[in-house]
């Protein structure tokens, strides 16, 4: 076995059965594997069911998005942000346009800010629904998957009516949003959906999955990321909050209209086991859906009248020379954009700090000593999206 890891070679040197030399089994999990949520490849060294070493191998979905940014102008690159975390695209738009606006010091109309928050939170709910669904699927629970997709469908329809697309919206532009509300009862439809989700659908998921005995057995005390590890490895979003750290960019580094809104930051409390286990990461997402519902309701209540973009849509944005970093709370964690401008219509460099990439690293530490089944649960609870890891 070609490895220099002392822990592993030490293991293999021992005679577990007298007279028989044993070695670890090298196992490729992915890139074509149903539980790796895309084209992630995990190189496992296992002894039977126990995993002794996990090495994530990424890059199968690399599309040079950052390099492309240097060749297109600021507005044109919004479409590429959609393709990072394609399950919650509007939150990605938000991260990018905030960075550009920081550089240009554009004043965004209040109505646009409200619409941004509403669509971004809808997108966050959609992303979290997929997270719950696929996490359940990793545990072998098929039925919640279909239920979550059914609710996501409603969100897709709502966003289609406002942005035109069903999956990749390209909704925000630097200086505002692309379209105003449609001329129909969109607002009341959103409120109706939000109420239904809170009162009917979430309790359904809770009975079906969250408080199911088998589900709790499978997720509690599994793959515990303690507070220090989560901070050391740069985990963000529900993974960090699941470990009991109350940190959310919407509250701790506020942007847009989030300071005006009243919402809570749910954290993992170790209700079913230890703080930072898979169940905690899962329940944080469920509770964030509730909070997103609250945010949407408030933002729609105080929705002001007025224009929705500060500058004309067709004009390219000219950005003064300089550099700016902005971070926002995307569905999967903290999404940061570092933009260096040389004063033209295209950025000199655009660096993306993607949340799934940082969250995934922790698997190398926490994945060791897990069972193969638990590793699947762990990857599911991290809620990674490969479009964002590889960019």
């Amino acid at each position, binding site marked *: 076995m070609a490895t220099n890891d002392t822990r592993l070679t030490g293991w293999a040197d021992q005679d577990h059965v007298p007279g028989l030399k044993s070695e670890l089994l090298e196992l490729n999990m992915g890139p074509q594997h149903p*539980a790796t949520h895309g084209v992630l490849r995990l190189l496992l060294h296992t002894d039977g069911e126990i995993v002794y070493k996990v090495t994530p191998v990424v890059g199968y979905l690399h599309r040079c998005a950052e390099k492309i940014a240097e060749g297109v102008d600021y507005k044109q690159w919004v479409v590429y942000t959609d393709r990072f975390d394609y399950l919650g695209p509007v939150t990605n738009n938000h991260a990018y346009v905030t960075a550009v606006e920081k550089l240009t010091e554009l004043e965004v109309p209040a109505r646009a800010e409200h619409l941004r928050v509403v669509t971004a939170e809808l997108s966050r709910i959609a992303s979290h629904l997929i997270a719950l669904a696929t996490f359940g699927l990793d545990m072998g629970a098929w*039925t919640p998957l279909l239920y979550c997709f059914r609710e996501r469908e409603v969100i897709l329809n709502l966003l289609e009516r406002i942005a035109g697309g069903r999956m990749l919206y390209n909704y925000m532009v630097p200086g505002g949003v692309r379209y105003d509300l449609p001329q129909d009862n969109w607002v009341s439809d959103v409120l109706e959906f939000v109420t239904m989700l809170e009162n009917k659908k979430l309790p359904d998921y809770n009975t079906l999955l969250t408080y199911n005995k088998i589900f709790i057995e499978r997720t509690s005390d599994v793959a515990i990321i303690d507070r220090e590890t989560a901070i050391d490895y740069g985990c963000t979003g529900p993974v960090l909050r699941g470990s009991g750290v109350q940190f959310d960019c919407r509250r701790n580094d506020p942007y847009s209209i989030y300071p005006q809104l009243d919402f809570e930051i749910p954290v993992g409390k170790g209700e079913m086991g230890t703080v930072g286990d898979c169940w905690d990461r899962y329940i944080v997402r469920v509770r964030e859906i509730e909070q997103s519902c609250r945010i949407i309701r408030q933002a729609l209540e105080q929705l002001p009248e007025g224009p929705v973009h500060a500058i004309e849509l067709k004009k390219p944005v000219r950005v003064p020379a300089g550099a700016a970093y902005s971070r926002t709370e995307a569905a999967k964690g903290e999404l940061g954009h570092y933009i260096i401008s040389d004063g033209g219509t295209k950025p000199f460099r655009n660096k993306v700090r993607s949340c799934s990439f940082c969250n995934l690293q922790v698997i190398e530490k926490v994945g060791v000593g897990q069972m193969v089944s638990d590793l699947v649960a762990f990857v599911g609870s991290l809620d990674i999206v490969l479009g964002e890891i590889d960019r």
Partner: protein
Amino acid sequence: MEAMYTFFMDKAGMGELGAHITVAAIMASLMFIVMALCAIIFTWMERKVAGFLQSRYGPMRTGRWHGWAQAVADMLKILGKEDIIPAEADKGLFVFAPLLVLLGSLLAWAAIPWAPDFVAADLDLGLFYIFAVSSLVVIGILMAGWASNNKWSLYGAARGAAQMVSYEIPLALAAIPVVMYTGSLNTQDIVIAQQGGIWNWFFLRNPFLFVAFIMYFIASIAETNRGPFDMPETESELVSGYHTEYTGMRFAFFFLAEYANLFLVSMIAVMIFLGGWWSPIPGLDFAPALTFIIKGVIMVFMNMWVRWTLPRVRVDQLMHLCWKVMIPITLICVIGAGLWMMASGAAS
């Protein structure tokens, strides 16, 4: 059965041996046809049940009426698939494994009492025989996983072997109280002992038998490798487990065996706990075979219901459940049922 022997010996003028061979051939082909039909019907049923539980329709197009021909179309498609044997596979074992898996469940079908005096093999050790031959499936699964020369398949096979060998114990132990009541392992005798309405069916005879029935049901899910105990397959962990490398008809054999096994354990449950061919109300036994099959289908539905509702347990939790929970409970059931029989004077 006696009537058939008499027919072939007297009317057709065969010798005793000839009559036996003819009847055996007829029954074997009949069982195989019924089994193949079951696989097709239950595939369709599983899709419809899953769809119903997941607020969708399932197949709706093929064959117009609720997609009834979907399973037939799938079978035809699978027949046309390329038969791939991996280059590094152990060819002999690879080819033989699906047959053995199918054989294991088909053999057990022989002792199923469909109706009074209608059983392919009327064995005195019927129930024992069923449990014995259905263990062949384990060897087939282990063979398939080993021969595929694929690490994921090997994982599936190792899990499958451990699981099925373990769960055969509570499965058989749960049936023992029934055998104690009947005093016979003959499948016909077991059903006949439950005559006289739903209150005489074994699962309602006493609390221990009821618990034994629940234990049997849980163990039977594990024995057929279906969710929440689908360890050998676990599509989200092991891709497809022991049959990852199989294609075309060889895969279809595993598929056929899964549904044949599903119906088999359901029929055993009906036979030993749910009154076999007797109708719930005494005196309404007009169509014993139909009653038997309807009860079997209800048990299959229960299996599907569980599969599409619950998440999967982990492999060590599965073993924990078997050795530390189910085996003690079934042992208590055996002792409890015995004491109950002594107290009520049934043992003589």
